[in-house]
């Protein structure tokens, strides 16, 4: 299945599609002010830099600069065993290690042709959707911080996130660096108490969402600050390879959970919300609606969770050597399409290892979204794209 056909012919990638804005050479305006926002800036979500050129407060040019957090992840992975890369994938998108783990496991399983037991498949979906909630709650909180609240929405979101993170800790041993998925299953079988606690939490979560939305969604200042700000056209988004909620906010129906139906997602009943304007408000609402859908998925998963082993009995933990070949495993991480490309030459280490990071690719159209807006909007637009620098810089 391919993304929904755009209504207008796609513009060539990189061609300005936004409104006509002032350019640097426009002779009728004042001198321009170049500001280097970041890498030390409270709103760049890590060590990220935006070289912005301002006319007054209006952005006429924006250059994203990244790489401050480059850790050579891919090269390291080519020099360690398959298993030893698993904890490193936690550090890619450190807010959603569970789904990053899964994406890597998915690629390796494809490479080695391993099967995954039913219970493990369900557990993976449970953890991935919990991760989606964690990520979106964080994102929405930080977005409001960028919008200038004094931490209140962020801390409400963190309060709920903390409850899920505590569950992760109880299950996997670590709050954020879970290192939980394995090739052919999962590492630890959750106890019935854990499942009960998680199920209770999920049932309570819509209450929090309702309160959160009552507090902010109808707020006039939020509407004024986000509606119409940072528009992204569907055609451009597709051309730039943008995925995830940012793409869906632009109105493109493309969700790998439906497209690939990896894992057991085909067994679940959930809907994919779509935006219309592709602006910051749509991107914000996509996250809220996706959290609601995740709750639905989780409730079904807790209801249907089968018993049985969580690990493929044929899986080898020590001395894992997939046969030579290549595989690309991808899934719908909370930020978009997260893919791992692996090329094996039959040794314990992958010959080639490559990550398709959604954060980085979603960032490519930042300038287009920001042009013509003010500095204050640039910060908000960046926040609404949802980047994690660990994944952008790798």
């Amino acid at each position, binding site marked *: 299945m391919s993304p929904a056909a755009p209504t207008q012919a796609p513009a060539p990638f990189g061609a300005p599609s936004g409104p006509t804005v002032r350019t640097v050479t426009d002779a009728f305006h004042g001198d321009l002010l170049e500001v280097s926002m970041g890498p030390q800036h409270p709103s760049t979500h890590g060590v990220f830099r935006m070289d912005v050129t301002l006319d007054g407060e209006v952005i006429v040019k924006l250059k994203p600069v990244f790489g401050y957090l480059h850790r050579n992840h891919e090269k390291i992975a080519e020099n360690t065993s398959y298993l030893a890369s698993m904890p490193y994938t936690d550090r890619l998108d450190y807010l959603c290690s569970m789904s990053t783990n899964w994406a890597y496991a998915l690629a390796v399983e494809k490479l080695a042709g391993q099967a995954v037991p039913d219970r493990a498949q369900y557990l993976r979906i449970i953890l991935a959707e919990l991760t989606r909630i964690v990520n979106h709650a964080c994102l929405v909180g930080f977005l409001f911080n960028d919008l200038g609240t004094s931490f209140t929405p962020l801390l409400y979101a963190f309060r709920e996130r903390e409850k899920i993170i505590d569950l992760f800790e109880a299950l996997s*041993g*670590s709050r954020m660096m879970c290192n939980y998925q394995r090739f052919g299953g999962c590492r630890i079988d959750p106890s019935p108490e854990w499942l009960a606690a998680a199920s209770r939490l999920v049932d309570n979560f819509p209450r929090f969402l309702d309160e959160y939305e*009552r507090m902010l969604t109808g707020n006039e200042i939020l509407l004024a600050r986000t509606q119409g700000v940072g528009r992204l056209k569907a055609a451009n988004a597709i051309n730039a390879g943008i995925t995830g909620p940012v793409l869906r906010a632009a109105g493109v129906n493309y969700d790998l959970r439906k497209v690939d139906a990896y894992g057991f997602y085909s067994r679940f009943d959930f809907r994919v919300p779509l935006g219309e304007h592709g602006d910051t408000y749509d991107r914000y609402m996509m996250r809220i609606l996706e959290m609601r859908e995740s709750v639905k998925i989780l409730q079904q998963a807790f209801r249907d969770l089968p018993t049985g082993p969580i690990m493929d009995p044929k899986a080898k933990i020590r001395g894992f050597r997939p046969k030579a070949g290549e595989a690309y495993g991808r899934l719908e991480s909370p930020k978009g399409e997260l893919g791992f490309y692996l090329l094996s030459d039959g040794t314990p280490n992958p010959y080639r290892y490559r990550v398709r990071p959604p954060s980085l690719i979603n960032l490519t159209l930042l300038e287009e979204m920001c042009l013509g807006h003010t500095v204050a909007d640039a910060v908000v637009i960046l926040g609404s794209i949802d980047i994690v620098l660990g994944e952008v810089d790798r």
Partner: protein
Amino acid sequence: MLGSGILKGLAVTAKNFAGSFYDPERMATVQYPEERAPLGEHYRSFPLLVCENAADPLGTLRCVACTICEKECPPQCIYIEKSKDKKPDATGKPQLYPVIFTIDTAVCMGCGICAELCPFDSIKMDKVFEVTATNRFTGLLLERDQLAKSNAYYHSIRPAEAAEVDARLAAERLAAEEKAKAAALAKAAAAAAKAAAAPPTTPPSAA
């Protein structure tokens, strides 16, 4: 009407303000040094080395210096040097032991891969998270004696897992003993048979 959204927001924060005084669901803060939140069942911090006897930690390490963990450790924070001689392990089998076993906790990322891969149930993940040192080079480089923790301690932090490990080890030991016994018996039987075939010249050795 303009302002209704703002008023709603004010109402929600007011509700949270009130709720923070009586609702533990809202006010989840724990006053840390005095109160502590319980650690999760599978919580992990840094690795430790299990030894059988707290009185002689270095002598009774389960580790046989196989260096699987050293090889598999993702950030390569483990350094092991094997011994030249062999010492009998828990099952009585003569095994190598580590002369040097250091973990650089400044490098360790606590992923737990070492504990997962250890075939001798020797390296396990600790639950102590309040680790500080005044020197960042020597203070964070943990030696054998700092890493060695008794099996009783392991039981105290992870009762279920430790019981399972002990049961498995006991079973292995039993199996080893039985195997040894069987081997001895077989040996004895063979010797007896040999003796029966030819008069013994040497007394049968005790296994």
